[in-house]
């Protein structure tokens, strides 16, 4: 059992989107490579098409319809024609020999340039044998290349479903450290855990000691595990001169089962009402942080 989803439907859908975004020359190139690969099954054909895609398909942005996007296991926002081709091309690999399949994909990672890495990490949710890519994903999180990190962290359901807790926590921490839009991490609330809350709280203390700002989204992951220690910080935030920090404090209290935090929230009934009406959410906080410029 290789794939954990209906890969044929997905492949057909991706092909359909690709065909809307290729020139005649690009379409011919794709057709030729596919035929060549199906007839010869030569690895050099597979690798070369993967690498050479931008030369023939270009790098123009592509768009999926709402219906297409809803039916796909990957989020195509920000995709270009070459990247779309690459994730579809990966689905052309046979999965009958697990060891070989993994070796071929690992070799693509080894020789990958930046955009290839982005395509490969973004394709994680599409790959067969999902359990086989955990170490690879953890390795990718160690990258220092911004868009490679984004391909793993943002809009990508693979990490939340597959990483163990230490690797997951590293992903979230690295997202804060590299100032990524954390709210776009899939499974952020579902994978929240006390250990991560403790590390983030320590991190916020370091930032404060250095007179550096603390990202308000951090409190989203601290809130559900608030106890005496973290509560001091929330009280401080509650009195912040920044609106967005006071909102973050209210949201953290709302997510908490800690008595004093619940009581604190009662002191600002208007914020509590906004939260309960769904008008104030972490999404609105995220939006405000991004717009604060």
């Amino acid at each position, binding site marked *: 059992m290789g794939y954990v989803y209906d890969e044929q439907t997905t492949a057909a859908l991706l092909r359909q989107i690709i065909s809307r975004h290729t020139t005649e020359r690009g379409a011919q190139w794709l057709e030729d490579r596919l035929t060549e690969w199906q007839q010869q099954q030569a690895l*050099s054909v597979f*690798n*070369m098409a993967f*690498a*050479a895609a*931008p*030369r023939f398909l270009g*790098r123009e942005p592509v768009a999926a319809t709402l219906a297409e996007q809803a039916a796909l296991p990957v989020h195509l926002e920000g995709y270009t024609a*070459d990247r779309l081709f690459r994730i579809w091309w990966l689905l052309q690999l046979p999965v009958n020999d697990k060891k070989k399949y993994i070796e071929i994909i690992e070799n693509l990672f*080894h*020789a*990958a*340039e*930046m*955009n*290839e*890495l982005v395509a490969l990490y973004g394709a994680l949710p599409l790959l067969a044998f999902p359990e086989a890519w955990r170490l690879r994903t953890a390795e990718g999180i160690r990258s*220092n*290349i*911004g*868009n490679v*990190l*984004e391909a793993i962290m943002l809009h990508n359901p693979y990490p939340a479903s597959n990483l163990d807790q230490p690797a997951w926590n590293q992903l979230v921490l690295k997202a804060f450290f*590299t*100032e*990524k*839009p954390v709210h776009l991490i899939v499974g952020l609330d579902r994978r929240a855990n006390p250990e991560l809350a403790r590390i983030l709280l320590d991190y916020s203390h370091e930032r404060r000691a250095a007179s*550096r*700002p603390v*990202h308000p989204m951090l409190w989203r992951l601290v809130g559900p595990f608030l106890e005496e220690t973290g509560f001091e910080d929330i009280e401080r935030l509650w009195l912040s001169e920044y609106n967005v920090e006071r909102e973050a404090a209210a949201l953290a209290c709302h997510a908490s089962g800690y008595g004093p935090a619940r009581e604190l929230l009662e002191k600002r009934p208007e914020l509590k009402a906004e939260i309960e009406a769904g008008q104030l959410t972490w999404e609105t906080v995220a939006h405000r*942080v*991004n717009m*604060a*410029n």
Partner: protein
Amino acid sequence: MCCSAQLTEKDLAPEAMNPAYLDAIKGMRFFDPHIHMTSRTTDDYQAMADAGVAAIIEPAFWLGQPRTGVDTFRDYYSSLVGWERFRSSQFGIKHYCTIGLNSKEANNEKLSEQVMEILPLFIYKEGVVGIGEIGFDDQTALEEKYYRAQLQLAKDAGLPVQIHTPHRDKKQGTQRSMDIAVEMGLDPYMVIVDHNNEETVKEVLDRGFWAAFTIYPFTKMGNERMVEIVKQYGTERIMVNSAADWGISDPLAVPKTAALMLERGISRADVELVTYRNAITAFAQSGQINEADFERVQEIDQSLKYNGSTILRGGQQPRPNKQSTIIR
């Protein structure tokens, strides 16, 4: 490398801050088609961006000591299309590279065989604008063997070739490099002969090749000599680069040479040809250079700024105040 020249007290004194040349070239854009950024610091990237360098080509070369295994070659090539490209983009500079086995290391036959095997994996990658820098160093039989093998690779892939010409026995080495390229059926218009000087330029141009000049203190060309070359030979198929690396070299050689040319009466249009346009024309034959990308890499930098000036996202590098004793 430097250091064969006589150093005087003046050479050793710290340089005065004098960015006057920046005024002369304000608003101009430059393309440095030969620079080894792997060996340079972030200060260089910032200074280059400030001086108008919009895009660069980093040829694969010798790292200063011989490699002992194919994996270090693989990682090096991979860093040219990966980490270094990203690092460059953080400063708003579009980074391309040429991939090849350099002449010095071609003398290790066992290793060269393994390197030749992995080269096809890299030459088709996005942003690879040629095979380079390849050619002769000591002019040995093994150097010739792998030079030929790589010319064939370039011919099959339809890629330009960036030729390194030797320091020692330069004139003959340059002639021999061109002879072999012609003999193997390469179009001279697809071949950029690098590190020219007053002695080699005429033949290179007469035979239809591109002539690149490296402005590199002490050992290669100085830019006053470069001005005279352009006055004598014009601008057709001539380009200037810095070849800045781990030696005493200058990553601003291209903008500085442009400023000097203007000062000495060469027209702005001609300066633009030898410091920007010609290199693009030559290497764009790879199909891998899109000038719109030069601006895109700069736009990305700006738009990645988020949450005011204190927080930067991914792409952009903050600028510390270098004159201050305080580091925050």
